[in-house]
C-alpha cells in the first residue's frame, strides 16, 4: 500500500519525537539506577562491607580455661576436665527438630534436653547451643561419623569444672554453673563470653567471688562460613588468656580430715594458723558434692539437699551465727580486766545464781561454785562470775572487746554470705528495737547468750587473737597467679599482757586441770598442749517451772531443741600455732560434743597427719585408734593431686 509522502513525513516525525521521548524516559530510569548503585556501593559501602564480614566471616569465641585452684601445698582442688559435648546452631540446622530426632537415634537424649535446646536455640539461632554434655568417647565418635546427616551439629571438646575433693571444699570453693538470665541482668556490660549459652561461671563461694580472676580472657577464632553455616576455613585464631590460678590457704588433707571427723553431725569447724591468719581448714557439715551442680542437679537431688534438716547447702562456718555461750566468757573477762573492774586475783562468790530485782540468773551448776577467781571461773565456766563481771564493766565495754577480738566484725573473705555476727550494745538495741538496754540483757550477754551471735570463723579468730594478742586477720587466698598475697605480721591488739596470760591460763585449765570442763579432751603431750573453752548455747528458753522440775536433759529433747555445743582452742599452749573453733549444732554440751572433735583437729593440724597416740591420755588411746579406723579419708597422694577418692 502506498501512502502520500506527506503522511510519511508526518509519521517519521512522530516516530522521531516519540523515540526521543522514550529515550529521555529511559535516561531517567538509567539515572535512577546509577544513583542507586552509587548509594549502595559508595555511600553505604562501609555498612555493607561490615554486613558482609558478619555474613561470611564469623567470630567464634574460644572460651578460656578457667583458672585452677590449688591448696596450700599445691594440690589441685578445682580442675578442668575434658568434656565431650555436641552443640547445634539453629540457623545452620534448618529443621532443628528433625536434626534432634536424628541425634536421638545416636545418643540418649532426654525430653528435657530436647526442650531446653529448642528453647535456647530459638533465643539465639546463630550461636551454638549445647545439646548434650559429658558424652562418652563412643557416643562422641558416633556423632562425628554421622556429621554429614546432622547439619548445624558440631562436636566439641570443651573444658568442664571438676572438684576432686567433692564435698570437702564445697562450701569454700562453691561451684560453677551456666550463666542464667538473672546473672546477666545483674551485670552492666557483660563480657561477650557470658553470652555463650551454657558458659560456666562461678555461682557461689570462691568461684563466684573471684570470678573476675578465674575466668580469663576469651580468645577468638575467625572462620569463613558459607550460607549453610559450613566452615570453609579458619582465618585466624587468637589465643585467649586462661584464668588466673589461685592458691588457697586451705590444707587439703586437713580439710578432708576435718570433714570426715565432723561426720554426719550438723557442725562447723575452722582452723586458723595464728601466725599468719591462714585458714587451714574451714568446714561445714554435712556437705554436698559441688560436681553435682556443675553437671546440672536434678530436681529430686536438689530437694534431698534442701529438705535435709541438717542444711547441707548452708555454710555454717561463715554463714552460721550462733550464741557463743561460754566461749564468750574470755571476751567478758578481758573487757573487765582491761577496765580494771576485776583483778586477776579477785574472787566472786557463786551461790548458784545471781539475783537481779526479783529475777534469778542461774549458774549452770545449781549448787554454785563458791569463791571463784578469774582463772578458775574459766576452768569451771562459772556463770555467776561473768554475770558479775559484765555488770561491773558494762555492755558497751564488752561489745567493744568482742569487736576487737573479731566478733561482730565481717571478715572480707572470698566466700558467700559471710555473717557479721553480733556484738550488741546499748545503741544497737535502741536502733533495732527502740528499747533501752536492760541489765538482764547485760547478764545474758555476759555468758554469751541473748543477743550475742558469733560465727565459727569469728570464734576461731577470737581464739587466735587471744593466743597471740595480735590482730590476726583470717585469709583464704595465698597467692594469685603465682604472686603471693603480701603478708605482714598482724599488729598488736594492745591488750594488757597480764590479763591475756590469766585468760590463757584459764583456758589451759579448761582442758588440763582435773576439774576443767574439758579435762577428758586434754592432750597429754606437752609439746602440743591445748588450751580451750567449752560453750553450750541454749536454743530454747528454760522456764522457771522447768527449772523447778529439773532441767530436761539434752538427750531427752528432740534433736532440733538440743543445745549447740561449742569449743574454741589454741595450741600448743606455750607457743601457739593454730586456733580452732568447733560448733556442733544441737550437739548437747560443749565438753562432750565439741571438745573431742576440736582436740582431734588440733592434733591433726599440728602433726600434719595422724598424731602419735601418745598425745592422748592413756585410757583413751584404744578408743581413738578404733575411731580412726572408721574415718573415711581420701587416699594420701602426691601434691600433684588427682581425682580418685577412697
Amino acid at each position, binding site marked *: *500500500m*502506498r*501512502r502520500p*509522502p506527506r*503522511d*510519511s513525513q*508526518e*509519521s*517519521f516525525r*512522530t*516516530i*522521531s519525537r*516519540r*523515540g*526521543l*521521548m*522514550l*529515550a529521555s524516559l*529511559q535516561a531517567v*530510569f*538509567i539515572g*535512577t*539506577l*546509577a544513583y*542507586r*548503585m*552509587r548509594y*549502595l*556501593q*559508595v555511600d*553505604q*559501602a*562501609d*555498612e*555493607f*562491607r561490615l*554486613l*558482609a564480614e558478619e*555474613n*561470611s*566471616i564469623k567470630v567464634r569465641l574460644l572460651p578460656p580455661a578457667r583458672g585452677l585452684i590449688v591448696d596450700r601445698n599445691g594440690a589441685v582442688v578445682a580442675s578442668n576436665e575434658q568434656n565431650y559435648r555436641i552443640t547445634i546452631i539453629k*540457623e545452620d540446622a534448618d529443621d532443628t527438630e528433625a536434626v534432634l530426632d536424628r541425634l536421638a537415634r545416636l545418643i540418649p537424649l532426654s525430653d528435657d534436653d530436647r526442650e531446653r535446646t529448642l528453647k535456647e536455640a530459638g533465643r539465639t539461632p546463630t550461636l551454638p547451643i549445647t545439646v548434650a554434655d559429658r558424652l562418652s568417647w563412643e557416643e562422641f565418635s558416633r556423632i562425628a561419623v554421622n556429621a554429614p546427616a546432622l547439619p548445624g551439629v558440631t562436636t566439641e571438646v570443651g573444658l568442664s569444672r571438676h572438684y576432686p575433693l567433692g564435698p570437702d571444699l564445697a562450701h569454700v570453693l562453691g561451684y560453677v554453673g551456666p550463666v542464667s538470665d538473672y546473672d546477666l541482668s545483674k551485670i552492666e556490660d557483660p563480657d561477650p563470653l557470658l553470652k555463650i549459652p551454657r558458659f560456666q561461671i562461678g555461682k557461689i563461694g570462691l568461684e563466684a567471688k573471684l570470678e573476675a580472676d578465674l575466668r580469663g580472657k576469651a580468645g577468638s577464632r575467625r572462620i*569463613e*562460613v*558459607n*550460607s*549453610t553455616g559450613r566452615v*570453609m576455613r579458619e582465618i585466624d585464631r587468637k589465643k585467649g588468656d586462661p584464668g588466673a590460678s589461685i592458691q588457697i590457704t586451705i590444707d587439703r588433707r586437713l580439710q578432708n580430715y576435718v570433714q570426715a571427723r565432723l561426720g554426719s553431725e550438723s557442725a562447723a569447724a575452722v582452723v586458723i594458723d595464728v601466725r599468719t591468719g591462714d585458714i587451714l581448714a574451714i568446714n561445714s557439715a554435712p556437705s554436698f558434692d559441688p560436681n553435682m551442680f556443675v553437671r546440672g542437679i536434678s530436681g529430686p537431688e536438689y530437694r534431698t539437699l534442701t529438705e535435709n534438716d541438717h542444711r547441707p547447702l548452708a555454710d555454717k562456718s561463715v554463714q552460721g551465727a550462733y550464741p557463743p555461750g561460754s566461749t564468750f566468757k574470755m571476751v567478758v573477762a578481758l573487757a573487765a580486766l582491761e577496765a580494771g573492774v576485776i583483778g586477776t586475783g579477785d574472787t566472786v562468790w557463786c551461790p548458784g545464781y545471781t539475783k537481779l530485782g526479783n529475777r534469778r540468773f542461774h549458774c549452770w551448776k545449781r549448787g554454785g561454785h563458791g569463791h571463784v577467781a578469774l582463772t578458775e571461773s574459766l576452768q569451771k565456766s562459772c556463770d555467776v562470775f561473768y554475770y558479775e563481771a559484765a555488770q561491773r564493766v558494762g555492755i558497751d565495754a564488752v561489745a567493744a572487746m568482742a569487736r576487737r577480738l573479731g566478733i561482730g566484725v565481717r571478715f572480707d573473705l572470698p566466700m558467700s554470705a559471710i555473717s557479721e555476727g553480733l556484738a550488741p550494745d546499748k545503741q544497737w538495741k535502741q536502733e533495732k528495737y527502740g528499747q533501752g538496754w536492760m541489765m538482764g540483757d547485760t547478764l545474758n550477754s555476759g555468758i554469751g547468750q541473748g543477743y550475742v551471735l558469733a560465727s565459727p570463723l569469728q570464734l576461731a579468730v577470737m581464739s587466735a587473737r587471744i593466743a597471740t594478742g595480735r590482730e590476726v586477720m583470717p585469709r583464704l587466698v595465698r597467692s594469685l597467679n603465682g604472686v603471693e598475697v603480701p603478708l605482714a605480721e598482724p599488729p598488736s591488739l594492745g591488750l594488757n599482757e597480764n590479763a591475756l596470760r590469766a585468760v590463757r591460763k584459764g583456758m589451759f585449765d579448761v582442758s588440763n586441770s582435773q576439774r576443767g570442763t574439758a579435762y577428758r579432751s586434754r592432750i597429754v603431750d606437752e609439746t602440743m598442749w591445748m588450751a580451750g573453752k567449752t560453750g553450750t548455747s541454749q536454743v530454747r528458753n528454760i522456764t522457771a517451772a522447768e527449772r523447778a522440775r529439773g532441767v530436761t536433759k539434752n538427750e531427752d529433747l528432740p534433736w532440733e531443741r538440743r543445745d549447740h555445743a561449742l569449743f574454741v582452742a589454741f595450741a600448743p599452749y606455750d607457743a601457739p600455732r593454730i586456733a580452732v573453733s568447733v560448733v556442733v549444732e544441737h550437739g548437747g554440751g560443749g565438753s562432750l560434743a565439741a571438745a573431742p572433735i576440736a582436740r582431734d583437729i588440733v592434733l591433726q593440724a599440728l602433726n600434719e597427719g595422724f598424731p602419735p597416740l601418745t598425745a592422748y591420755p592413756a585410757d583413751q588411746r584404744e578408743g581413738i585408734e578404733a575411731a580412726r579406723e572408721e574415718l573415711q579419708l581420701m587416699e594420701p597422694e602426691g601434691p600433684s593431686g588427682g581425682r580418685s577418692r577412697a
Partner: protein
Amino acid sequence: MSYLEYNVKTVPTGLRKVLHVNWPLVLLLTAVASVGFLMLYSVAGGRIEVWAEPQMERFAVGIVAMLAIGFVPIWFWRNLSAVAYLVSLLLLVAVEIVGTIGMGAQRWIELGPLRLQPSELMKIALVMLLAAYYDWLDVKKVSHPLWVIIPVVIVLVPTFLVLKQPDLGTAILLLAGGGIVMFVAGVSLWYFAAVIALAVGLVFTVFESRGTEWQLIKDYQFRRIDTFLDPSTDPLGAGYNITQAQIALGSGGWAGKGYMQGTQSRLNFLPEKHTDFIFTTLAEEFGFIGAVSLLTLYVLILVFCIQSALSNRDRFSALLTFGVGGTFFLFFMVNMSMVTGLMPVVGVPLPLVSYGGTAMIILLGAFGLVQSAHIHRPR
C-alpha cells in the same frame, strides 16, 4: 516512507552487506557477552567448563544467527511477523497444556538439544507484529479507539498466558515491550496517562483494602509486598535474596574486592548467582566502577539502537528497532533494579550476561532483526 517506496536497488546486496552491518553494535554485544563469560568463570569458582564454556558456544551460535538474520532483507521479516506471533502463541498454549498434563509449571519445549521458551520467542514476535501493524495502519487512525483495541488485545493475550505460568517477570516485559512500540508509534498520550492512572488507583485500592472485609489480595501476598518494601522484616525468608544481594553489592564498594575475590557469591550467600543475580557478583568483585561500566555498555547498545532507529525512514524498521532496543532496555533495567532493591524480585535475567539457554540466542536473533533493518534501511 515504506520500503516499497524507495529504490530497492540502492540497498546493498550480496557480500557488500557485510560492510553495512552495524559493527559497533556487534562489538558492544560481544563486549557485554565477554563480561558475562568472565563472571560465569568467576562464580563457577574458576572453572570454565561449568557455565562459561557453554555460554561461549551459545554466543557463537547467536552471533552467527544474528548476522544470518541481518543479511535477510527486512521486508521478509516484516511479512513473517504475523506468522512468528501466531507460532509463538501456539507454543505458549502448547506449553500451558503440557504443563497442566505434565508435572508442575513447565515453561519450555524441548527442541533437540535446545530448550525453547515460547515466552522468550513471544517477546520478539510481539514487537515484530506490533511494528508491522503500525506500519500497515494509516497514521491518522493510530489513536482511534478501535485501532488501539487491536494492539492491546495482541499484547494482552500472550501476557495473560505467560502470567498463568506463572512468570510475572516475562509478563511485565511483554506488557512494557508492547507499550513501548505503541508509544513510539504515536498512540495518544492520554491512553498511557489513563492506564497509569488506572494502575496507580488499583494499587492504592489494593492497599486500602488491607485488613478490611473486602481485602482484594491474600495476606501472604501482602507480606511479600512488605518484604519487598523492607527486606529486613524477613531476613531469612523471602527477604533473604534481596538482603544478601544488597550486601554483596554494597560490600563491593568503589573498586570492588577484585576478580574472583567476592566472598558473598563464592560462599553461596547469593541465590541464583549464575543467572538472575549474576550482577551482584560483578558489582561485588568490580565495585561501583565495574557496575557502572557494564551499565554504560548497555546504554551504548541502547544508544546505537536509538540512533539506528532514528536514522531509518522505514516505519517498520524504526518501530522494530525501537521495540527491540526497548525490550533490551527493559531486560537490564528490570534485572538491575531487582538486584539493587528498586524492584521486587521477578525473575528476569541480565541480558547476555546471565547463564541462560536459549534466551541469549533469541536476544541475538532479535538484534539480527535490528541489523537487517540497519542494513536494508532506505537510502
